[in-house]
């Protein structure tokens, strides 16, 4: 089942258009930086972008920071929101379930497909950003936030953990979109539901009055991957970010499973 869903996702032009758009934004930013030579003022703008002009090694992290707040979650919402609701709106869901395929198995296959998409998108953006950064700005030892350059072997694992962290951070959004996808036969409504969760979380995170709930917000720890580039690494928020996503994924997917397995689809 998973193989079928994966093949379907990989063969869809939409998948690659979304990934191209995701990778395209950092490429556009890099070209503009290279042509104009004007970066954000030091200490301002998206993380690491001010230093990219002098060192392309930072561009993968800068690219992920660029797409993380809005562009990437929208892309993930579109793919995950469409997964069940899309089949439902086309009328193919009932035929799928007429086959000897359990609903739980179908939901897991959809979830795994979305997860593959998320990891694939984040990985491709990071690789494209590295190639573009190296070509346009050159590669030097990775500068740490705390000053001293990060050794090559350290830079590798920190970048790998960053890619995994950003991808896992998106799984909470994917789970929300998947949940809404089980409630409606309109993919647009499912995407809108996930984006409503996203925007609500980001707005509350900006409010000083909402300080008590900040540690529980879906988006609160998203940018904590910057702590991986400090010396010593500050693991506190990175670990909390992983755990919080785990809780959201369990909660939202549990609800999605409960709804999907009891929903009247075939009649």
């Amino acid at each position, binding site marked *: 089942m998973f193989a079928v869903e994966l093949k379907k996702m990989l063969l869809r032009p939409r998948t690659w258009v979304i990934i191209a758009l995701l990778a395209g934004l950092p490429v556009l930013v890099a070209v503009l930086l290279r042509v104009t030579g004007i970066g954000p003022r030091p*200490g301002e703008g*998206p993380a690491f972008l001010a230093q990219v002009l002098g060192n392309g090694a930072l561009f993968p992290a800068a690219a992920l920071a660029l797409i993380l707040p809005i562009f990437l979650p929208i892309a993930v919402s579109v793919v995950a929101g469409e997964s069940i609701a899309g089949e439902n709106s086309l009328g193919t869901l009932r035929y799928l379930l007429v086959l000897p395929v359990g609903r739980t198995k179908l939901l897991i296959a959809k979830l795994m497909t979305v997860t593959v998409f998320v990891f694939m998108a984040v990985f491709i953006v990071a690789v494209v950003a590295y190639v573009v950064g190296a070509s346009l700005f050159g590669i030097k030892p990775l500068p740490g936030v705390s*000053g001293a350059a990060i050794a090559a072997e350290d830079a590798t694992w920190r970048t790998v953990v960053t890619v995994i962290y950003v991808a896992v951070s998106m799984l909470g959004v994917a789970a929300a979109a998947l949940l809404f996808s089980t409630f409606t036969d309109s993919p647009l409504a499912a995407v809108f539901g996930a984006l409503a969760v996203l925007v609500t979380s980001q707005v509350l995170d900006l409010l000083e009055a909402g300080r008590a709930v900040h540690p529980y917000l879906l988006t609160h720890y998203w940018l904590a991957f910057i702590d991986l580039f400090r010396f010593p690494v500050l693991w506190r928020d990175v670990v909390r970010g992983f755990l919080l996503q785990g809780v959201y994924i369990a909660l939202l997917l549990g609800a999605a499973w409960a709804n999907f397995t009891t929903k009247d689809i075939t009649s």
Partner: protein
Amino acid sequence: MVVAVAAAAALIPSALGLVPVSKAAVSAPSLLRRVLASAGVSYSGLAESFAGLSLPDVEGAGRLAAMFGEQTRMRVWYEGPTLWRVDELTPIGERDLYRDPYGTWYWDSGRRHATRTEGEGTVRFARPADLLPPELGRRLAAPASPAELSLLPTERIAGIDAAGLRITPAGDGTTLDHADLWADPASGLVVRVAITARGMKEPIISSSFLDLEQRRPASSITSFELPEDADAHFSEAPDFARAVDRYSPYVLPETIAGATKRAGAGAAGTYGRRFSLIAVLVLPDRFFPEDRLSALPEVGGPWDSARLAASPLLNALTVVDGGAAYVLGGTVTPDRLVAVASKLLDQGVAVQR
């Protein structure tokens, strides 16, 4: 079932906070003594401070307005009073201060710029490291007398069952109503501070550890190495107060309106006693950015112009008169600042040759 398990997982951190704390068997005077003797305790950790003073953001005042107006997140490695590192964490970088026996290195990750300053200076502006619970706690504990102390319930803070101590200043004209400290009863290290100004119900400044380890940090962490790609320069006066102290030609008197000088030998000094402290700077008015203070209310008096920045805890008065600019600020009422400024203008300040 799934929802219940996930909700239970989400509530684990809150549930841990409900585990009963062991009550500290220590008296208030004894806890105060331990706090005052804790300067040599090595530690490292992560702390957060919140302040709501809303001070004006003036050029040269460094991070003063931000520090006292918003949340500051700090990471610290402290071996002793002359060897430590404090990182002020921002969402996209950090500003670090490394202290060694001969001075400080200041690192700004955004600009990738380092500043070296030899020595510490007798008068300087506050910096994020001053907001760390141990530093702030010792500063508040130093002038307290046993009659001003009371014990607060023990609280678990950053994994420590911290004994609570309230200091309520006995009327000496300060804007401070009370300061609450929680400290490790064994080492005296302060782990949380909450400062409440007169007339307020909630603390206006609070600072607390989120994580804490009481052991000596590695020297590789507390020593600064200049990165190859960084700019660096030396500065004798990294903030406005030290610039005034270093370059202004004026010399402040030993006493003003009954307040005795505590520190400073030139144009920058601190006056007062216990919890009523006033910092005073005097400089040629052509170096004073008066035009940036136009949003502040004017204050009438025997001077060319004066403006007041008021908050429940800290008040500041700037006065321009006779070619000199005076900056006065501290934990006293605006009326007291106006009285001190009037007296200072009456007395006049000497000029160094």
